């Protein structure tokens, strides 16, 4: 167990290192001159050179990289050369939005998908299963931004049930916060419901054929007990893996929805920074998002070992 965790942690460090190089190169090898952004296109060549020197951009690329890396290792993610806000503080403002949207949507998705899958798998290919399977197939083809637009069309413009945009921090007003995140969360939930339902249904159907389910029936246990206490856990491995991928991709995937609902989450902040050539903020945020992505995958791997006691032996 501990050696397993240690191995995973070592992997994480290596991957994070590789990602940091990629992020750095991505930002520095692409055309575009930060000095133009800061000074405007009309300033003199000399002023630019001075600024480059001031920003440390005149040094060789590898040196710039190691300076950046060294700062990160000391806990300094850098700061915007436009607003002088530190990356850490930007993350502090943006991350709560992403965290609420991701946790909210995934929680709702699981709460909806699991009972649906249980019911569907109990009688495969019957009316309920058919309609749920077909509906979720449709949901898979239903982009979140389309869902968002249609909901705003119906509930914000039509009947003023929810606000069409904006995010109120949960610390300010819980009800305002919930009203604001309801539609974004539903938009993000739909696709996840479809994925979770389909993963769990397929595995449940397979599990219900297993001998140990027949054995549980032969103990005279109720169908509900067998489904929830015997079949669900061994059917959830793919579901968990799917959740990892889903959450990972939502780290940036929420952006489209945040953009439409006018919420300044991580990805929205990142895109702003990209458009302003605020390269240190871009590097910092991109690194955080990528590393979070890898960490989520590793957490899922670890949870898989908890879910399936047979893995622990290895």
């Amino acid at each position, binding site marked *: 167990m501990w050696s397993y965790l240690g191995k995973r942690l070592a992997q994480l460090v290596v991957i994070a290192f590789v990602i940091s190089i990629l992020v750095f190169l991505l930002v520095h090898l692409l055309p575009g001159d930060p000095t133009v952004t800061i000074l405007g296109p009309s300033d003199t060549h000399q002023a630019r050179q001075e600024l480059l020197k001031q920003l440390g951009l005149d040094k060789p690329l590898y040196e710039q990289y190691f300076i950046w890396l060294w700062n990160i290792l000391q806990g300094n993610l850098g700061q915007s050369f436009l607003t002088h806000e530190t990356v850490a503080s930007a993350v502090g403002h943006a991350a709560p939005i992403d965290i609420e949207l991701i946790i909210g949507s995934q929680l709702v998705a699981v709460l909806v998908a699991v009972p649906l899958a249980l019911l569907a798998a109990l009688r495969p290919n019957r009316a309920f299963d058919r309609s749920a399977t077909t509906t979720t197939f449709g949901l898979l083809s239903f982009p979140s931004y389309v869902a968002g637009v249609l909901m705003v069309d119906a509930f914000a413009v039509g009947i003023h049930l929810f606000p069409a945009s904006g995010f109120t921090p949960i610390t300010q007003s819980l009800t305002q916060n919930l009203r604001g995140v309801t539609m974004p969360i539903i938009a993000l939930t739909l696709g996840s419901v479809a994925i979770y339902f389909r993963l769990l249904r397929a595995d449940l159907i397979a599990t219900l054929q297993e001998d*140990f389910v027949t*054995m549980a029936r*032969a*103990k*005279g246990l109720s169908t509900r007990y067998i489904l929830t206490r015997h079949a669900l856990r061994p059917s959830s491995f793919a579901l968990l893996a799917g959740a990892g991928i889903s959450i990972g991709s939502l780290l940036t995937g929420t952006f489209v929805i945040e953009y439409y609902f006018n919420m300044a989450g991580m990805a929205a902040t990142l895109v702003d920074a990209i458009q302003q050539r605020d390269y240190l903020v871009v590097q910092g945020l991109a690194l955080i998002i990528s590393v979070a992505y890898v960490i989520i995958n590793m957490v899922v791997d670890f949870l898989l070992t908890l*879910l399936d006691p*047979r893995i622990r*032996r290895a």
Partner: protein
Amino acid sequence: MSPKADGQLRFPDVADLNGPILEVENLTTHFQSDRGLVRAVDGVSFTLDRGRTLGVVGESGSGKTVLSRSVMGLLQGNRVVKGGTVRYAGHEISALSPAELRQVWAVQIAMVFQDPMTALNPVVRIGRQVTEGLRIRLGLDRKAATETAVALLESVGIPSPAARLRNYPHELSGGMRQRVMIAIALACGPKLLLADEPTTGLDVTVQAQILDLLGEQQQERSMAMILVTHDLGVVANRTDEIAVMYAGKIVEKAPTTELFAHTRMPYTEALLRSIPRLTDPSHMRLRAIPGRPPDLVNPPAGCRFAPRCPYVQEQCRQAEPPLRNAGPGHQFACWFPVGSSEGEQALAYNLHHKVPAALAFTGTRADNALAAVPPEPTPTGDGEVAS
């Protein structure tokens, strides 16, 4: 889903029971498949008295596993076509609803499954798998259930049982897993135990231990037991009666000693000969039965064993032999039974005409059988066969 209070079934104390604990009459279980109807169990009848043991023997694919699950009523779903009746302690359990059947399972009839690796839930600790029946079916509280579970595991010969409750199935050896399964089956004190190939996949020494354990437990609890196996050797000393199944039907049934002493059905004979003996030369080839069990969607007309039978005659391919009596409790289905003059004649005739099944069947007997040109045999009549 939970049984209604007024829907509670009452079962007589087994000690007060008059008549057999289990009566199976003309039981059929067919499955709808893409290829057609699979006749897995096709008209099986037998009775079992309390405290007695019935061995059900047959190759894989003979329908013996389906039989044991049908008796219990475990096979449900819209692809299962059921027929016939199963009466347990006077109740026609084949007519019960799934919810009512749940009252029967574990407490009245329990099953030991074939493969403990797949029949124990791999992600649930042994403790819950043993105690959940006790708690839910018998209403024991956590403490009492755990104590009972420890006692159960101890009684089936599991060392340091309290510690084992924390284990997952994969952490135990095959033999231990099978003991756990037996403990689970015994947990709610069933009056009838169905053991479906309980020793397949275990070492020979462990096999004997498990079978002995089943025997002891049966004695102690005066349970009735049905022991399903492909190995006649397994049931030889451990059953009161044996039913031999082939292609979904019982082809011979007799008290154990009678069956071994006066085998009638050529299939039973072939099974008997396939058991390796200690007296055999050490490198002798095993005499497996050539051929395969028939397709249960389109079983052959006439006797289903005919295509593989060393005694087979034209008659066997035309008409299905009925079950006939051959002494007290001994029934068989064959036109040219083993040990009868018709049977001897049929075998000799087949050997002379070099019927492959007959040649494969006999090693030494071929020489004397070939000595004279045998006349064409005629089948025995419907009456009893002199032994």
